[in-house]
């Protein structure tokens, strides 16, 4: 056995506290990537043995058994067996058991022990077990299992040194044979044995009325549960939109300032324009979403860490079942109201691959925050500001656009679950974990990792696209006195595009705005502003001035069609990029692009012609 590349793997049921233990053992020295060919996260980090020797520790996805029922479990099985390409077979296996759930978790543990590999057991969350009145005897468990059993409390850093020592000892004791393998038994036998072993390890058990049961009585209450969930979600949304604003303004100001600085520092040239209008403006337009994403993920990670997320899925399952999805799809779709990128990133918690794919494909239909600037300009310009009953007409139109997005997503999900993602109606089987207080460190680490993924992946993609768009808009150069846009490749594309979008009421200026808006929807506003040569300082003024311009040039039917277009149009490169990443290829992002464009075209067209027929043309 090679000494320099010692690998250990954490294995356990979902909710055994594996991730917290992994964070405690490795600190921030973690590498997160996907296993090749699947969207299962590979988390690896460096753990240090008492001798000072580093060990690569891999956190395997939670698993109920080595008979895989999900891509996650398949990876866990392959890594343990040494069949996962690019992943060394672990030298030591660390089984993580939830102390308060021994009978259940010992089923997987026995299956692993049957392999006869060097193994150590971490009896995790012993503090929570004690809170519930359950006192265990690690020594009894150790003699029953035949491998070292170390009591740990990951979040309080209890037992970590002992665990590291046990890992070192397990590796050194036997190089190849490991402990005596337990005989292979069937699942019912394993369960029976688990029951016996667990019973033998319990020193005392007072059946206190468990804390989580009392909390659930309120949070899962058939009438009170849903209103509590919606109240919480309301707070989350408020936070995403209001708390983020100052940070977004600051970042926006930073990007503008940097652009101005470069503009003043360099002599006028194409290179300077490329830096300011292309690179800085483009990347800046993406970075401004970082505060929203961080705030949203703060809530999502907290809900996950406390155990409330599973309850939210429980409460929403019935509704989601109506369109062939399950409660697990609820949170990703909800997140997509802020931005589809974190929404799609959070679909990883959906175990069923078809459910997950469907959720990813409909996520862009949820009205994200980037559509707001577009909606705001058009509604402000074309929809009269008057009252309809107790609500304003403008607000009503905005609300309608949101509803159309949700209804569209539901309809598309329904159709997909009967066609391309057809399969048995996805069920909903999910453990409801115990409530826990999240640790600041785990939350901070999670936030940092999400932020990094967003910046690196979406950032590089956006950067590339922005550069390409800038090139398309600036080449070939126009002759002196002629309009650059007309001469550019983008201008020619817009001319071609105008023919295609004319039937749905769009003019050439709109066609031109649609091209750069591929990078991000809100760019449509600034491109229209450029096209109509509106000169104004800040965004608000631009919006107002642009509105006046538009009123003169567009009919109401065109404006409504433009709104309908943006409900469906997949105009966001970050979403395409993250879909490619999460589905491992170009097949599904291409499909997503195609179906959304078709929907956008059909709905914009229908809106235009209905409006024209109604005399609004």
């Amino acid at each position, binding site marked *: 056995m090679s000494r320099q590349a010692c690998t250990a793997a954490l294995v356990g049921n979902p909710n055994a506290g594996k991730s917290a233990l992994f964070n405690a053992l490795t600190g921030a020295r973690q590498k997160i990537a996907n296993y090749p060919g699947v969207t299962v996260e590979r988390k690896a980090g460096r753990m240090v043995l008492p001798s000072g020797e580093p060990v690569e520790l891999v956190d395997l996805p939670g698993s*109920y*058994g080595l*008979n895989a*029922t*999900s891509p996650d479990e398949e990876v866990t099985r392959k890594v343990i067996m040494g069949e996962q390409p690019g992943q060394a077979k672990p030298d030591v296996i660390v089984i993580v058991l939830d102390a*308060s*759930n021994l*009978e*259940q978790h010992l*089923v997987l543990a026995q299956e692993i022990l049957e392999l006869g590999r060097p193994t150590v057991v971490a009896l995790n969350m012993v503090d929570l077990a004690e809170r*519930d009145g*359950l006192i265990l005897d690690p020594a009894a468990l150790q003699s029953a299992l035949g491998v070292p059993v170390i009591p740990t409390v990951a979040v309080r850093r209890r037992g970590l040194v002992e665990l590291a020592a046990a890992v070192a000892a397990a590796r050194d004791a036997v190089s190849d044979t490991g402990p005596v393998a337990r005989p292979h038994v069937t*699942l*019912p036998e394993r*369960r029976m044995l688990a029951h016996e072993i667990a019973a033998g390890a319990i020193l005392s*058990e*007072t*059946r206190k009325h468990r804390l*989580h*049961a009392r909390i*659930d009585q309120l949070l*899962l209450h*058939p*009438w009170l*549960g*849903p209103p509590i969930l919606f109240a919480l979600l309301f707070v989350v949304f408020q936070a995403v939109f209001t708390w983020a604003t100052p940070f977004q303004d600051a970042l926006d100001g930073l990007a503008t300032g940097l652009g101005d600085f470069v503009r003043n520092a360099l002599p006028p040239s194409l290179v300077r324009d490329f830096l300011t209008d292309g690179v800085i403006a483009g990347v800046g337009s993406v970075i401004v979403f970082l505060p929203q994403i961080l705030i949203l993920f703060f809530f999502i990670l907290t809900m996950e860490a406390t155990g409330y997320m*599973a309850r939210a*899925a*429980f*409460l929403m*399952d*019935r509704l989601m*079942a109506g369109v062939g999805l399950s*409660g697990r799809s609820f949170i990703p779709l909800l997140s997509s109201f802020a931005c589809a990128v974190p929404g799609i990133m959070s679909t990883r918690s959906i175990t069923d691959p078809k459910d997950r794919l469907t959720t990813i494909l409909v996520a862009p239909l949820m009205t994200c925050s980037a559509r707001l600037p577009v909606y705001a300009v058009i509604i402000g310009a074309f929809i009269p500001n008057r009252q309809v009953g107790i609500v304003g007409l403008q607000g009503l139109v905005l609300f309608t656009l949101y509803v159309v997005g949700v209804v569209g997503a539901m309809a598309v999900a329904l159709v997909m679950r009967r066609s391309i993602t057809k399969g*048995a109606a996805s*069920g*909903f*089987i*999910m*453990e*409801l974990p115990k409530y826990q207080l999240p640790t600041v460190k785990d939350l901070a680490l999670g936030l940092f990792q999400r932020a990094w993924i967003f910046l690196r992946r979406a950032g590089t993609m956006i950067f590339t696209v922005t550069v390409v768009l800038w090139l398309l808009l600036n080449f070939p150069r126009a002759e002196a006195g002629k309009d650059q846009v007309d001469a550019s490749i983008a201008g020619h594309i817009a001319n071609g595009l105008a023919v295609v979008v004319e039937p749905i009421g769009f003019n050439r200026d709109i066609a031109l705005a649609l091209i750069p808006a591929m990078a991000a929807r809100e760019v449509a506003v600034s491109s229209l502003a450029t096209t109509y040569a509106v000169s104004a300082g800040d965004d608000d003024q631009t919006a107002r001035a642009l509105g006046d311009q538009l009123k003169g040039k567009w009919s109401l039917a065109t404006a409504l069609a433009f709104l309908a277009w943006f409900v469906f149009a997949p105009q966001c490169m970050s979403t395409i990029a993250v879909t490619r990443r999460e589905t491992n290829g170009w097949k599904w992002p291409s499909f997503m692009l195609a179906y959304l464009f078709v929907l956008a075209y059909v709905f914009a067209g229908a809106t235009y012609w209905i409006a024209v027929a109604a005399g609004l043309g």
Partner: protein
Amino acid sequence: MTLDELPLGTPARIMSVDWDALVPEEAQRLRALGIDEGARVSLAYRGVFLTRDPLAVEIGRMTVALRRAHARAMTVNRVEESIPA
């Protein structure tokens, strides 16, 4: 009586499961969670509003959410005495 008809909080034992009524992966998942013939279960919560779906089933010290369709495939018998400590 099937599991979905069990009154809330009543301890029961799963007597038989109509595995054919379940999707193979889901059957496997339920079994992996210990929801199988012979298991002691009770219903903790039942759906939102008037839907009675999904169900939260307590098994050992674990709570598992599942759909009514799954529960309907499981025949249960009430267990009279309380769970021994």
